[in-house]
């Protein structure tokens, strides 16, 4: 098909570069420089979509971000699908494939349209709140159909092949929008020497100057644009970001700019030099000052059937003609409330097509453009407006009648004008979205019939966004804002240097939103306010009749403004209609709050590089290589990858976890095992008050711990609840090494700093993290001493190096601190070496360990062995509601310490002192073959009806190869005084397990094995 609406010349498209594309499977041609929308219009495609609620045919209305209808599905491949692309902002590329998002079997002949036509009357606003209630059981079925009908495009089913990234930027002046105001502001700020970022959402910079009829310095406006862009791009202190939308304006001048780097080139980023560049990039900008030069959006008029394809914004008509060389029809009727829209008629006429008439709502239109139109012989009908469009799939006529705005009525029958295009303009709405992201409320101005932004500190607004529309004034306003912004950053601003533009004399505009119709609004043909969500003037009227009086209520009841265009075209009209229905002024109805994003942003761009492998750091220990090579399965513990267990291949088959863990457990209890415990938090504590400090943050006593000795400690919050535990070694009188749980490392260090910095700054002590400095290797089991004796010069004699001692020396020729602490209950040596040597030490231990059957074990075996000993894991056996007393660890509670340590006072509160609190006990299943489920709930009366009173739960549960039975740790109400009693654990499958309450220490209750 040829481009029947394409002009032979004019516009900024490159006619030498023809591109082909498809829409709904049909092939078309366009030019480089087209948007998908301009190319569709060039090819005479009227219907681009079907509407959401009534399935009415819809065409292109606008030429930019405000477009509500032309929202299409892009993509020829599954992975390359892009849902909900606005055709007006999608640059055409060769091979582009797009489809309508609604319409069945197709957008031209849509069966749902019939439903919409017949059923439209049954769908007033909020109809779904009033029906689908009977029978109640049918709702989910009704809803299935509602869901099927909703939604626009579809998500791809495959993983995104593209990548995205972020750039953190700081600048003195960020200018949003590169129209006349923005270019002028950027020039002023840049020439002053400040660091400037200029971002504009369009394919090229220039904004309204790209389709202006005005001349700057006696030259076409776009030549001035080209000069400015050339100058700015040559400056080191300026970053120009075209195709970049400022989407969110956050606190303290932080803005997100979404730069589309390849979306104009293909559905996925095309390869360049063997690499795929990022599809889009999010600039996270902290700006000293922001100049908002975001311009204004034209408001359409609201009249009958104003949604039929062929109804466009007046400004869009000019854009298509002057920027793209496309006239979107043959015969135009323009309906306007202001002078500016006359451009559309003049441009149309100059393209060689018919202007049937201009219906001007003003009684005596008189501005320069009006005179030009008159001079060209265009028929102007004063005091009139298009009250209703005719046509099904394309406008076929316009009924124009004289209207009385004040009384909201039509004065005559009017006449039906034959045409295929109706352009309308009700004036302009400043683009206040960004400014209102910051929480500042806009102010209504009667003189410009629009809201202007209220501004927070650090921001200036310039040009259209301020309601200033005349080009020479806009240029000056932009310069002033740019200069002021630079000055605020300490730069010297220069005298304005701007092109001369002739000041145009415009007549005053009139306030017109909804056009009256002969019939009352509820009976008139549908007058659309929000095209994307099918919200009509009648809908708004019904809502106000039903008591929805605030604009937020109206919005929510009708869904106005909730589309992907966020009501850029419709909101002000909707407000005006609500105000009329309620008999109030527009500012009394309020404005709605605009939220980020200004236009929708790809999730991928917001995620950036933080996905897949880089979603979250993986932290490795110094022995990780060895673990990988030896087939470890890993457990995620915080960000760490810890070996979980080391399955072996036995007789050609991989051990199960159960088998591997049983083997590892036996190895430790019978021979010797080794654990990589490097992930434990380690804090170096120095200072004369270190000991005092420990006494305050731990529940137990530290006054007498001698150098060379180690002690276990519990830490509570001041509510008395345990939050971490670990051992701390006295290295010297004023020097301690604290260990924390793996997950608690950062928390505990910050906890210590908190108390030191805020409550006890007088204590002379310093804390430094040495978690990464030391690798920790735990050698444990009856053969541990023999193995150690082969690799260390430390005297391992049981009387000189006792349990809970630490010593220094060399292990495998590497300086080491060795701690005789045990988390397994067996003889154990915890070796700390500088991490860079750790793999060597580990491997040396294996070189010597073969004869002792040295077995690596992981966290699962560690858990079994510690649980057999009744040792808790903070966060597993405790959950923030467990006190040291609940744990039965009275031996670790220094009731008589002079300082009221953190957590002590809370223990005597009435609830914390109750005797029947949940207390840590052991559980022995009656059936030794049963391994209770962790998290199983404990009851005393298994026959009790649901809800069944629960008395506790299983916190840790394992199979013990040593006991050859299951065993568990649990918390049970009053458990410490219930030893020997039977409890019941009702399971999901209906089974009820029985277990006996026993001591939590299952193996070696006297602690002889660790003391050998």
């Amino acid at each position: 098909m040829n481009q029947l609406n394409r002009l032979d010349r004019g516009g900024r498209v490159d006619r030498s570069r023809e591109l082909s594309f498809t829409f709904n499977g049909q092939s078309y041609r366009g030019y480089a420089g087209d948007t998908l929308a301009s190319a569709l219009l060039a090819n005479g495609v009227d219907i681009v979509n079907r509407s959401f609620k009534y399935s009415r045919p819809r065409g292109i209305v606008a030429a930019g971000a405000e477009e509500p209808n032309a929202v299409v599905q892009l993509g020829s491949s599954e992975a390359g699908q892009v849902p909900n692309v606005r055709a007006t902002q999608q640059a055409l590329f060769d091979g582009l494939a797009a489809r309508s998002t609604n319409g069945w079997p197709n957008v031209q002949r849509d069966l749902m349209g019939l439903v919409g036509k017949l059923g439209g009357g049954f769908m007033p606003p909020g109809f779904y709140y009033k029906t689908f209630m009977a029978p109640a059981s049918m709702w989910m079925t009704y809803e299935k159909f509602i869901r099927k009908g909703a939604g626009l495009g579809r998500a791809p089913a495959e993983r995104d092949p593209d990548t995205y990234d972020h750039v953190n930027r700081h600048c003195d002046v960020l200018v949003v929008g590169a129209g006349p105001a923005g270019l002028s502001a950027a020039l002023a700020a840049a020439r002053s020497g400040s660091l400037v970022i200029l971002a504009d959402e369009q394919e090229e910079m220039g904004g309204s100057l790209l389709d202006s009829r005005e001349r700057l310095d006696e030259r076409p406006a776009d030549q001035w644009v080209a000069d400015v862009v050339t100058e700015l791009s040559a400056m080191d202190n300026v970053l120009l970001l075209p195709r970049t939308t400022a989407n969110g304006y956050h606190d303290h001048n932080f803005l997100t700019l979404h730069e589309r780097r390849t979306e104009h080139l293909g559905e996925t980023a095309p390869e360049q030099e063997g690499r795929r560049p990022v599809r889009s990039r999010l600039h996270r900008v902290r700006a000293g000052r922001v100049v908002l030069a975001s311009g204004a959006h034209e408001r359409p008029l609201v009249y009958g059937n104003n949604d039929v394809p062929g109804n466009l914004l007046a400004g869009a008509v000019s854009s298509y003609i002057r920027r793209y060389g496309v006239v979107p029809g043959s015969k135009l009727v323009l309906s306007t409330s202001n002078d500016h829209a006359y451009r559309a008629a003049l441009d149309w006429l100059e393209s060689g097509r018919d202007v049937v008439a201009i219906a001007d709502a003003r009684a005596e239109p008189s501005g320069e453009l009006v005179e030009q139109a008159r001079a060209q012989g265009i028929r102007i009908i004063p005091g009139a407006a298009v009250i209703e469009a005719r046509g099904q799939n394309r406008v076929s006529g316009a009924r124009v009648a004289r209207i009385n705005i004040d009384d909201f009525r039509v004065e005559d029958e009017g006449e039906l004008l034959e045409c295929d295009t109706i352009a309308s303009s009700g004036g302009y709405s400043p683009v206040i979205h960004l400014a209102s992201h910051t929480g500042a409320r806009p102010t209504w101005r009667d003189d410009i019939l629009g809201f202007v932004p209220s501004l927070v500190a650090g921001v200036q607004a310039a040009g259209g966004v301020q309601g200033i529309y005349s080009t020479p004034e806009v240029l000056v306003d932009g310069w002033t804002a740019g200069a002021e912004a630079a000055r605020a950053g300490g730069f010297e601003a220069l005298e304005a240097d701007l092109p001369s533009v002739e000041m145009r004399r415009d007549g005053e505009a009139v306030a017109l939103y909804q056009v009256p119709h002969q019939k009352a609004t509820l009976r008139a043909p549908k007058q659309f306010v929000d095209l994307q969500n099918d919200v009509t003037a009648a809908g708004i009227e019904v809502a106000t009749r039903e008591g929805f009086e605030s604009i937020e209520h109206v919005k929510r009841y009708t869904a106005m403004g909730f589309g992907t265009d966020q009501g850029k075209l419709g909101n002000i009209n909707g407000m005006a209609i609500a105000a009329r229905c309620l008999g109030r002024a527009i500012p009394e109805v309020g404005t709605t709050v605009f939220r980020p994003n200004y236009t929708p942003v790809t999730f991928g761009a917001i995620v950036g590089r933080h996905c897949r492998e880089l979603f979250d750091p993986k932290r490795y220990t110094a022995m990780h290589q060895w673990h990988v090579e030896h087939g470890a399965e890993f457990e995620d513990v915080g960000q760490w990858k810890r070996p979980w267990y080391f399955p072996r291949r036995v007789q050609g088959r991989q051990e199960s976890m159960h088998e591997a863990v049983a083997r590892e457990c036996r190895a430790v209890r019978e021979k010797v095992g080794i654990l990589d415990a490097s992930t434990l938090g380690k804090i170096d504590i120095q200072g004369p008050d270190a000991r005092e400090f420990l006494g305050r943050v731990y529940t137990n006593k530290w006054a007498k711990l001698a150098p060379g000795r180690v002690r276990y400690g519990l830490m509570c919050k001041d509510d008395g609840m345990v939050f971490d535990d670990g051992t701390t070694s006295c290295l010297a009188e004023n020097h301690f090494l604290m260990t924390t749980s793996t997950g608690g490392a950062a928390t505990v260090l910050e906890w210590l700093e908190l108390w030191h910095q805020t409550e006890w700054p007088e204590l002379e002590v310093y804390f430094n993290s040495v978690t990464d400095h030391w690798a920790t290797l735990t050698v444990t089991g009856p053969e541990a001493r023999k193995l150690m004796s082969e690799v260390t010069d430390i005297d391992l004699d049981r009387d000189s190096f006792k349990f809970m001692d630490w010593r220094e020396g060399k292990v495998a020729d590497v300086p080491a601190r060795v701690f005789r602490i045990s988390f397994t209950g067996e003889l154990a040596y915890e070796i700390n070496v500088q991490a860079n040597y750790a793999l060597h030490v580990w491997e040396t231990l294996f070189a010597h360990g073969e004869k002792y059957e040295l077995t690596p074990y992981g966290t699962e075996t560690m858990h079994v062995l510690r649980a057999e000993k009744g040792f808790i894991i903070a966060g597993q056996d405790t959950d923030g509601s467990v006190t040291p007393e609940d744990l039965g660890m009275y031996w670790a509670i220094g009731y008589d310490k002079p300082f009221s340590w953190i957590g002590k006072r809370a223990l005597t509160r009435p609830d914390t002192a109750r005797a029947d609190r949940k207390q840590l006990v052991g559980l022995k299943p009656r059936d030794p073959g049963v391994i209770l489920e962790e998290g199983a709930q404990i009851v005393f009366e298994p026959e009790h009806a649901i809800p069944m009173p629960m008395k506790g739960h299983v916190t840790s549960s394992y199979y013990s190869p040593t006991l050859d039975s299951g065993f568990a740790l649990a918390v049970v109400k009053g458990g410490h005084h219930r030893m020997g009693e039977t409890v019941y654990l009702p399971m999901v499958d209906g089974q009820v397990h029985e277990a006996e309450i026993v001591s939590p220490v299952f193996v070696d209750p006297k602690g002889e094995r660790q003391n050998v």
Partner: protein
Amino acid sequence: MFYIYCPYCGEHREEEEFHPKGEAHIARPSDPESCSDEEWGDYLFFRTNPRGIHHEMWIHAVGCRKFFNITRNTASYEILETYRMGEQPSITDDSREPLDVAQARTENTPADNLEGARA
């Protein structure tokens, strides 16, 4: 996203380097054992939570690791001052008014223009 002046580093830093730590100037009772349960509960859990001027503790967690205080408006999010641990704020809410009605309205109610016009 806040831009926070660290009183120890002497420059503005991005909010991502900091963590908020709740209301400032909540001292641990010097003699906990003599506190009633109510006083202890008050220390642990009860907060002023004002709409408006709030003194709050933050830590420059990815930075100098120092705790410090911020006086911030919890409605506008404006940071009015930052000061070191142990120092007192220079800006306080002395009005003792239970509610800043005007502020509450502007910040919490999107239809505030309507209310304003009718009040």
